[in-house]
């Protein structure tokens, strides 16, 4: 990176920490620290909800996925707008009127303390693990671009976020999210615009889209009914609906954002704001990845996107890599010529598709070689976009895009740390240990718990390298626990089942999800559906048993 890029990145990092501390000054108790005094407006909460959901993985992983696999991942968001409407009608009014700090507090009002505790514990497990992966993804980017180790990146990013969240709590989180989301939107339009501008003069956007289409990169609507096929229209609409219901309705990292609204109307509007904008925004990000794919038609792509691994393969298997480079050069030239032919005559798509397949085959050989040399399940999808940024952006823009990736990571991390501390504090410390402590003591413990979760996130991030493609990992963690959590909230709101049946149903539902996950019987997008349905069905089936055997107890 050029010196100007470093300056831009440093200004962002120092500026966001200072702003976060300024915005969060004056917290006097848990209501200020965890719910920003319950006086926030819909647009600030809406941007915060959006920023919390957009992690750095959205930039790094999704663009890379669009490059290698196309835009199919977009269907994951198709259920989201419908989920927002359902939540505005059902759960949001319940939470708001119950004046709770955590979603799980409501379960004690409806069922009992152990149901609340178990659900909160599931949230802490799922979110606690994913928060580490959220922190890990940007470290991949910076290990390539900045030449830092992943450990250094994790420590700088985690440390700076921990500082302002520990100091200012939810008010810092929401206001920094607003700034970070503005920066992220700017970054999305910048990357999209530059991706178009970087196409060769004789290749129009329409030509580029024709190439992407011939290579299968524009496929979105897969109507296959298979439960194992990833990202079908149905898994997106149904599975995505349940994932969104669970995430926005029962995950404390999101619930806490809209509980800070000054009224129920403000809380609802913040969710509907996301319902309108989420799918178009994700479409733009994926299309940027597709345009990066088109860009590399006219620049020879490297055999491997991970530069350190490429250097290692170069050292340990130079002859084999040289042979692959030679084949790659030829296959790239062939594809370039086929692309030019396709641009001039759309009837040449068969030749183009053949050239693309040959290039993919050479690339598969390079990946197989990297796997053999490193002895790992090598996957460099997450390195594609950073390599592109480094190759094309000048004049401080690379630093700005890196700052955007930092912003995406820090906005997610801040919301998650704040919510993990809230659940630990309200559902465990205040519930079981010190229910009558003073406001000052509560505030102090809340800050300590935030710091503890921050350190935990850093430790998990340092171990995340062993996991697969980051984009799926984060979502997969959630799918193991969000379905059963959603199921118990459905029981709470829609039925009159007793507490013991709800508690047993959660355990049964979690067993079903883990069985499906371990056996790989369904794609992970269906796990939330399975978990929610299993808990709901078990609750309904168990409910009459105790009534029959012990009617007096009812």
């Amino acid at each position, binding site marked *: 990176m050029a010196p100007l890029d470093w300056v831009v990145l440093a200004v962002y990092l120092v500026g966001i920490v200072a702003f976060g501390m300024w915005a969060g000054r004056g917290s006097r108790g848990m209501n200020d620290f965890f719910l920003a005094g319950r006086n926030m407006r819909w647009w600030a909460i809406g941007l915060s909800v959006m920023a919390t959901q957009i992690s750095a993985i959205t930039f790094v992983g999704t663009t890379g996925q669009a490059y290698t696999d196309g835009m199919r991942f977009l269907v994951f968001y198709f259920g989201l*707008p419908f989920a927002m409407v359902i939540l505005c*009608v059902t759960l949001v009014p319940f939470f708001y*009127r119950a004046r709770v700090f955590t979603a799980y507090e409501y379960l004690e009002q409806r069922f009992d303390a152990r149901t609340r505790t178990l659900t909160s514990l599931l949230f802490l497990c799922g979110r606690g693990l994913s928060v580490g992966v959220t922190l890990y993804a940007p470290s991949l980017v910076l290990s390539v671009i900045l030449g830092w180790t992943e450990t250094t990146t994790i420590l700088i990013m985690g440390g700076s976020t921990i500082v302002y969240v520990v100091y200012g709590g939810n008010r810092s989180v929401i206001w920094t999210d607003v700034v970070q989301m503005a920066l992220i939107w700017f970054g999305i339009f910048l990357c999209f615009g530059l991706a178009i501008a970087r196409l060769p003069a004789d290749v129009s956007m329409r030509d580029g889209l024709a190439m992407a289409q011939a290579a299968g990169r524009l496929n*979105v*609507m897969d109507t296959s009914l298979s439960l194992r096929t990833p990202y079908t229209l149905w898994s997106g609409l149904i599975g995505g609906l349940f994932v969104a219901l669970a995430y926005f309705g029962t995950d404390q990292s999101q619930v806490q954002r809209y509980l800070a609204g000054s*009224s*129920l109307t403000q809380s609802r509007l913040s969710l509907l704001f996301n319902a*309108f904008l989420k*799918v*178009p925004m994700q479409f733009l990000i994926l299309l940027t990845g597709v345009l990066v794919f088109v860009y590399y038609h006219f620049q020879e792509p490297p055999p491997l996107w991970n530069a350190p691994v490429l250097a290692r393969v170069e050292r340990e298997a130079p002859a084999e890599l040289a042979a692959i480079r030679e084949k790659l050069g030829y296959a790239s030239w062939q594809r370039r010529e086929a692309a030019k032919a396709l641009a001039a005559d759309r009837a040449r798509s068969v030749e183009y598709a053949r050239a693309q397949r040959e290039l993919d085959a050479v690339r598969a050989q390079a990946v197989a070689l990297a796997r053999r040399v490193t002895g790992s399940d090598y996957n460099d999808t997450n390195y594609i976009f950073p390599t592109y940024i480094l190759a094309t952006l000048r004049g401080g823009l690379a630093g700005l895009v890196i700052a955007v990736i930092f912003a995406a990571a820090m906005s997610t991390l801040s919301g998650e740390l704040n919510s993990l501390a809230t659940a630990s504090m309200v559902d465990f410390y205040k519930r079981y240990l010190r229910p009558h402590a003073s406001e000052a003591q509560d505030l102090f413990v809340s800050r300590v718990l935030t710091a503890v979760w921050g350190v935990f996130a850093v430790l998990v991030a340092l171990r995340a390298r062993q996991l697969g493609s980051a984009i799926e990992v984060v979502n997969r963690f959630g799918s193991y626990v969000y379905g059963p959590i959603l199921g118990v909230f459905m029981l709470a709101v829609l039925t009159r089942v007793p507490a013991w049946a709800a508690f047993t149903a959660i355990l049964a539902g979690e067993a079903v999800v883990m069985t499906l996950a371990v056996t790989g019987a369904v794609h992970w997008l269906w796990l939330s559906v399975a978990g929610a349905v299993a808990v709901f069905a078990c609750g309904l089936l168990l409910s009459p048993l105790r009534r029959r055997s012990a009617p007096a107890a009812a």
Partner: protein
Amino acid sequence: MDEPHDPVPVFGTWPRIYAAVVVCAAVVMALIAVFSRWPW
């Protein structure tokens, strides 16, 4: 607590906003389907 005088912006009532969100989502998905199959 929800204030009785907190108005519902632009659309006037909640059902109208919800209907607008659903229609908008359906239109966006239809446009994406057209985009992905358009003979570029």
